[in-house]
């Protein structure tokens, strides 16, 4: 089992606040890895560091053996490492199909390609993926008019359209109504299994992440607290204390 992402001793501070303190973890290829921790524990900061949103203070981040801690966001995205946002982000004034088309990966795009049309196979693929997340009947609608849950699904479909090697999902079930969550988990699993996308997921919903992940890392106060299978994590004293102890705040 090879590690797709190797994070080694990564630290990141904002002013005097240490958001990540010497964090080391690995995301193995072809698996679903979870990242949990109370609010403010540094999960999103770690995601931002991995995708190049801000420079890290120290440490090393490798993606498929390549050091990426110096790369900026678009370059890392073109390597096949994508993320979705906690606050869903889509192109809200474009229709769903166009949202999908422009999300195609830009790895081998040349300048001249900017002036080319999309081949019909790509529209076909966009529609298939919209169907996969259950948005086929909404494909011609302006995406900003969709409900929040549907926008989350669209963002997920856009990520799949990019054919990433690894997808970082920041709270995929936040704000989605409970009946939809099962459908979403099913699709996340199928994306991992059928499309060969490795997933690294931040999630606050414990039943979801215990169900979905093969292994879980837990952060607290910017430090790595525990790592193990869902069963091990669930029975880990430190994790339970972190969630139920002094640092617990109401989930957003």
């Amino acid at each position: 089992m090879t590690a797709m992402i190797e994070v080694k001793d990564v630290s990141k501070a904002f002013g005097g606040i240490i958001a990540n303190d010497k964090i080391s973890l690995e995301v193995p290829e072809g698996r679903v890895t979870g990242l949990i921790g109370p609010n403010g524990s540094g999960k999103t900061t770690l995601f931002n560091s991995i995708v190049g949103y801000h420079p890290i203070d120290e440490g090393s981040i490798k993606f498929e053996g390549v050091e990426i801690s110096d790369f900026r966001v678009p370059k890392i995205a073109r390597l096949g490492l994508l993320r979705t946002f906690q606050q869903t982000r889509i192109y809200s004034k474009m229709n769903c199909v166009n949202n999908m088309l422009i999300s195609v990966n830009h790895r081998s795009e040349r300048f001249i390609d900017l002036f080319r049309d999309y081949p019909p196979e790509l529209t076909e693929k966009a529609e298939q993926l919209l169907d996969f997340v259950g948005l086929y009947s909404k494909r011609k609608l302006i995406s900003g008019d969709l409900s929040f849950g549907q926008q989350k699904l669209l963002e997920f479909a856009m990520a799949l359209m990019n054919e990433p090697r690894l997808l970082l999902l920041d709270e995929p079930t936040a704000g989605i109504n409970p009946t939809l969550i099962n459908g979403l988990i099913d699709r996340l699993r199928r994306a991992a299994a059928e499309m060969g996308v490795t997933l690294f997921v931040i999630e606050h919903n414990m039943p979801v992440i215990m169900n979905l992940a093969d292994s879980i890392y837990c952060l607290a106060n910017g430090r790595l607290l525990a790592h193990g299978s869902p069963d091990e994590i669930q029975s880990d004293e430190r994790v339970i204390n972190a969630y139920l102890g002094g640092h617990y705040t109401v989930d957003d």
Partner: protein
Amino acid sequence: MTFKQKQLALYGILAVAGIAAPFVFPAYTFQITVMWVMILFAVTWDIMGGQMGYNSLGNIFFFGAGMYTCAIVQIGLYYDVAQYTASYGAIKVDFTPEQYFTGLVLGIIAAALVCVVFAVILAHVVFGLRGPYFAIGTLGVTLSAGELTGAWEYVGGGGGIALPVFPGEPDDRALMFYFMGFGLAVATFLFVKWMFSGRFGLAANAIRDDEEKAEGMGIRTMRVKTTGFAVAAFFLGMSGAVFGNMIGFIEPLEVAFPSVTFGIFMVIMCLLGGKGTLWGPVIGATLFHAFKEVTWTYMLGWQWVMLGGLIIVLVVFFQQGVLGWMQEKWPELFGIEVDEGAIATALAGPEIDERPHRGEAAQ
């Protein structure tokens, strides 16, 4: 008639009208030429301002840069430019028809190319700015360009340059510049229409809607922005070259870099017609130009008040513009689908419809 045929018919009618206009209304040839330039202004402004969400107040810079580049080439081919501008006609300046036309054509080409180079260089400076900072930054570029040109003795400074005189009858001159303006506006429109029909259009709209997301998806945003800016500069540079020669005398503040007139007009025209659409800027420029000509003719003294009034009405009551309003009112005409049940479904139903919608997905 299919949609495509209707479209072709529309283009045909417009082309015939454009060609016939100076012969039908010879007294208005100059005004209609300016209208074509206005359309070019609006269409090029919309590339960045409408489609990409980068509201530039400095696009008129390329108009002036093209105008001066063309003048330098036209004169510099046959005379020493510094001597020519310093003499105010004291040296005998006489361009043969051959020299005149060679200079004009080469000047227009040079204007386009120099403006593209300027655009690529400027892109690396101004695209670091977002929102209002970008607008002010680009405005600063134009204002300083005007001031710098005014202090540049080589091109005559604030005194300006009298351009080579057209070797022929005034009517022929008017017709030639009319067709140059018309041709440029049509070429600009067709190029922009083509450019936005492919990936470029979607990339531009993605940047408009959420640039950070676009970067996160791996779109080469800088390349898209620079390309859009350079295309606008290419056509604006040529329009400046033609416009300068049509006026015959150029100077930095009022003719070449008129930030508060043409520079602002291009924004208003796009807002009036509906920014971010293909036809909006064309409609907006036509209406605006008509409005302007009417108020300038019949309400002289009040024309700026009328113009200010129009801007206020647009910004407060009519932000979506003519075409934007039509799209809202008759979305089906524009191929936009609106799901009236969407809100009800979102409130009531399961959001993932488990039934397969497509044959191939049912497996």
